[in-house]
């Protein structure tokens, strides 16, 4: 079964009439990694928010099905429990909520929603410690409130840690590479690659070919002005790196 099917999606802001996503179609099968590239403001983050269920957007046309169900009908927490995970371009700081507590509440809420047994505290601690060590996330970071006082790069690593703990079936990474130093990029890419599996799909949004050297995509799509204007294999990313987006930004008006 297809994991995600986006068909002719049109999205506008609730309080504005301009369409941001304008007829986008994309199919992600289990095991596939899709890279989405495109100029600033082309709608990449908007697409990721719509998939995660953020409010403020209105779908005016089209559909999104996830594992055969209407994704747009689900609340964000239902989507998460079904397996959707968005690593935010700008992860949010939540003062007063401890990272460990947050992870535990999130994981157990998802397990409960899926009718699985909640994880005991020792099992949970073991899981997080193991995943954190692989991503170079320090114990000190885990003790702090969610993302509070984390550097830009630390926030990105923390997002991937959440993903590694929650083990979603659709990972959407929105510019996870931006703000990462060279070593961190490798660590994060390794973390993401460790999650690649035949039953998990990924959408990797990035501006840079470099990330795709590490996380090698099956497909590369160019998003411009709210629609996919070109798709190809990983060589498309190299081409874009060389030529830029000029070709698409002119045509796609």
């Amino acid at each position, binding site marked *: 079964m297809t994991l995600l099917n986006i068909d002719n999606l049109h999205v506008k802001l609730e309080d504005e009439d301009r369409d941001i996503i304008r007829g986008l179609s994309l199919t992600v099968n289990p095991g596939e990694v899709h890279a989405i590239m495109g100029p600033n403001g082309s709608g990449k983050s908007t697409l990721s928010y719509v998939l995660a269920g953020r409010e403020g957007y209105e779908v005016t046309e089209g559909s999104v099905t996830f594992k055969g169900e209407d994704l747009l009908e689900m609340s964000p927490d239902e989507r998460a429990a079904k397996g959707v995970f968005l690593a935010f371009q700008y992860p949010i700081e939540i003062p007063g909520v401890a990272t460990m507590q*947050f992870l535990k509440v999130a*994981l157990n809420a998802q397990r409960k929603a899926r009718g699985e047994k909640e994880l005991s505290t020792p099992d949970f601690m073991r899981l997080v410690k193991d995943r954190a060590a692989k991503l170079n996330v320090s114990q000190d970071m885990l003790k702090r409130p969610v993302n509070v006082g984390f550097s830009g790069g630390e926030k990105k690593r923390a997002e991937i840690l959440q993903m590694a703990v929650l083990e979603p079936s659709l990972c959407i990474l929105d510019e996870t590479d931006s703000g990462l130093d060279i070593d961190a990029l490798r660590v994060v890419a390794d973390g993401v690659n460790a999650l690649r599996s035949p039953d998990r799909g990924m959408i990797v949004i990035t501006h840079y070919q470099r990330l795709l050297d590490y996380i090698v995509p099956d497909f590369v799509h160019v998003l411009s002005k709210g629609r996919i204007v070109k798709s190809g294999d990983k060589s498309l990313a190299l081409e874009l790196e060389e030529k830029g987006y000029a070709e698409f930004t002119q045509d796609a008006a």
Partner: protein
Amino acid sequence: MSTALARTAAEEALGFQLPNRRMEDWRWTDLRQLIDKPYPPRQKVVAKSADVDRLLASSLFSGVAATRMVFVNGEYDATHSKQANGWVESTAALDDPVNLMNVAFATDGARLRIEGNVDTPIELVFISTDAAPRTVATRNVIEIADDASATIIETHVGEGSYLANSVMEIRIGHNARLDRIKVELESHDAVHLAHAHVIVGQNVTFRDFTLTTGAKLNRQNGTFRFIGEFADAKISGAYLLAGKQHADTALVVDHEVPNCASRELFKCVMDDHARGIFQGKVIVRPGAQKTDGKQSSHALLLTETAEFDAKPELEIYADDVACGHGATSGDLNHDHVFYLKSRGIPEAEAKALLIAAFVGEAFDTVHHDGIREALAVFAERWLTEHRRKG
């Protein structure tokens, strides 16, 4: 002026004039209007032991090792108490209406003198059992000797309809330390009127925290007098209010001597039609130089019908001081809620977490880990389990 008003039924029963909105301090809490039935004083009510046990167990701190002293319907209950009552004279002459009624109606109260370092917290539990509406009044006097230290919890619980009037006089001797934690978890049909009168000696470290969450109508006054130099007081509080609950805290922090520091921090959550008020006055007397006095109140309004009013006041008669106040008010951050939901946390749980995080800052003044933890657990479950309805 107010003498011209005909007595309300409540005033008839009490034999007292209730404060009303024409009095500056009571403008948001007009007891003449808000107290809508008679609560006759000095009614003897005998409680069933099972009721007392149940209410004792409802204390947030029933799981915390503490020396308990229990008052049931305004009287010391020896069978449920570990701590024997003593005698300390009342010395505070307060002319506020709550205190005047307390002087007239109080039937009993804790009278304790603390010496040395008392490690185990002392929990004073004030229980009102379900009976005909009446006033239940206690006057408590606690003296912390020079160089002594203690943690004193004050828990107010009850069932049914009553008016609790609680006055707490506290004198803290030189070089002493007191952590006071008060939880107002009265019956949802109760009125809670209180005055804490605290005298802070030289070199004292004083920590005060109050959780306000139970009664339908709550008015808590606090008077904190610094009478010795180099003392440090942190006074914090949290409101968790829902339904039509109304809570008004009016504090006066009085710096009579130089070189003392006071911090007030109130974090107030109001849901439904609840209404919260925080009035904080800081006085710096002539000559009280180097006073460091700051207060802030922050409100989280979960609905558009909830309301919060803050009235900070500074009265400063010295020139070399650092004083200030701040007040904010807002709703839950939607991005925070979305972030939590995007990780699979359902809306109600996400909100509960954020509410606990918001009020949690006020728990930081509480030193005792078990007490702080119990407060945090209550806050986390408030939205889904403990909140007052209606």
